């Protein structure tokens, strides 16, 4: 912030105000006085961009959900390539121990506020592979907003889950509260108990 008095006395000098104070004031102005929060929630709800990370075989139905017949693009969601341009992760089915590392890395790269949908019985609690030695439960690695049951869930349920998430964002004002408070008050942030990438050879 540059401050100059009316006579131009401050010319040549640059004063930087307290950025935190200014930001807090701006936030108050936008969120409380101008009620911009609703706009943020509305905008976030209709720009859910799932990351193109297929963890398991439910990816077949995930792909079909964006195919011409089910056309989830109409809900304002389109799978995208780079994690840094996305805000939604759909975990399709089983997450193996090897994959958990990749899921977490992708999750860390995504900008806030971000959401997670767990798709399929395996993503709920292991499903048919519940006693396998090589899988982890998705809720151990990312905070999950919506679960979709089914093995595999139909593409319609994927659409339904996205609508449910939109509803949640708008009713609980998730996105605007994130901007106001700096974190999501409705969701505990998950930090994996064990080191997921310990096997990494890099």
């Amino acid at each position, binding site marked *: 912030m540059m401050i100059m008095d009316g006579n131009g006395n401050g010319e040549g000098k640059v004063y930087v105000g307290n950025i935190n104070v200014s930001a807090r004031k701006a936030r108050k102005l936008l969120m409380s006085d101008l009620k911009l929060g609703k706009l943020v929630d509305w905008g976030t709800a209709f720009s859910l961009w799932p990351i193109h990370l297929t963890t398991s075989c439910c990816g077949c139905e995930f*792909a079909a959900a964006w195919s011409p017949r089910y056309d989830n693009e109409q809900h304002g969601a389109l799978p995208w390539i780079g994690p840094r341009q996305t805000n939604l992760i759909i975990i399709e089915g089983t997450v193996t121990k*090897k994959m958990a590392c*990749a899921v977490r890395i992708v999750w860390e*790269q995504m900008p806030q506020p971000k959401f997670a949908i767990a798709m399929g019985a395996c993503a709920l609690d292991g499903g048919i*592979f519940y006693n396998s030695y*090589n899988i982890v439960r998705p809720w151990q690695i990312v905070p999950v907003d919506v679960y979709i049951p089914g093995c595999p869930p139909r593409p319609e349920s994927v659409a339904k889950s996205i609508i449910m998430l939109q509803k949640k964002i708008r009713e609980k004002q998730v996105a605007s509260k994130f901007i106001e408070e700096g974190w999501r008050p409705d969701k505990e*942030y998950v930090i994996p108990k064990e080191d997921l990438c310990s096997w990494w050879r890099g």
Partner: protein
Amino acid sequence: MSGIIRTQGAQVGFNDLKLPGMWSRKIGKDLYEIFIGPQHPGSGHMRIVIRVDGDVIVEADPDMGYVHRTMEKLSEVRTWIKGIPLFERMAIHDACNVTLPYVRAVEKLMDIEAPERAKYLRVLLCEINRIAAFLYGFGIFGVFLGHSTMYMWPFGDREVWVELAEWLTGARLTHSYPVFGGVRRDVPAGFTDALRKAIRYMRKRLEDYRKIFVDNPVIRARLEGVGVIPKNLAIELGITGPNLRASGVKYDVRLNHPYEVYDQLDFEIPVFQEGDAYARVWQRVEEIKQSLNILEQVADWLDKHPRTPILHDKFWKTAPPLYKKIFEETGRAKLGAVYAIMKVPAGKAYERAETARGEISYYVESNGGNKPYRIRIHSASARNALVYKYIVPGHRVMDLPAIYGSIDYFPPEADR
């Protein structure tokens, strides 16, 4: 800055989590190691570690196992019948083809054979699955090459076949249709007419695919002469399926080791000599045409023959009268309790089948108990994975998606 994650009450830095990022690293002069995947559009759950000199790949190391769900081990602690839905998860869009050899291997051990009608029904669903799986492969290939139309069209047309399979079995993808001694359901009324309509539609659409995708100059430029697998190398590496036949080897399990009623049906095995990515695309188009021919013959057979039991007598004779009544009214064969307590005589059996991606083989060993002693599965994609190690070096990085897509690699099937 960007690594700071705020949690309730505490701040955790990115470095505190000790998570490595994706990077490329220098391993020699002009030599870099690049990690491709497992988060990648289309590649799904597989990583290929490549070493590049400039733009040319000098070494590729496929790093598989991101979907390894330990099916072989889990099958050892589950009863025989539970193996069917378990193995189906390898390739859920090709479910019938993938589970059929397991069912047949167990039938072999029990010395039973499915009734003829059940065999035709199995072939029916196998070919429906095969076409759907090829279309799925085309869609993924379209994503790889940035050809969005080729994603939209096959996925739209695939719904036709998925719908038929759903009508026949009740599930979109995970059918669990073949069971020991037969199949679960007979065809519903009006099914064959819908099937013929779908065949006519598909033949028309294949011509559209040729116009927009296969003969597209951009696609040809990217695929022709890329990823050539010479015939002798294809045999040496043991690659399988359409990829093998595109390299000039006439090998198809349906021809070389006929199962079910494939020896009574009239179809050809298309073979291409070029062995490049473009030939593999054509190979799949031709195989869809042959599958359509098979389906036509199966539809004719089903029309001509009346409804007879679709489960082997060993299982069907103990069925209660209610089950038989349901079968006569609706064509659904409910599975009796005999499946849950089933024991399989001791012995070994080896069975294979031609899935959409190639040959899948099951080694089944029983010690006479109600659970398998050892089941070893080697799927088509697992065998095709060798291509990345031995064929990819020498190509440019931009050729990698073209090769990957043309191999039609499906990680869950490879990792089991």
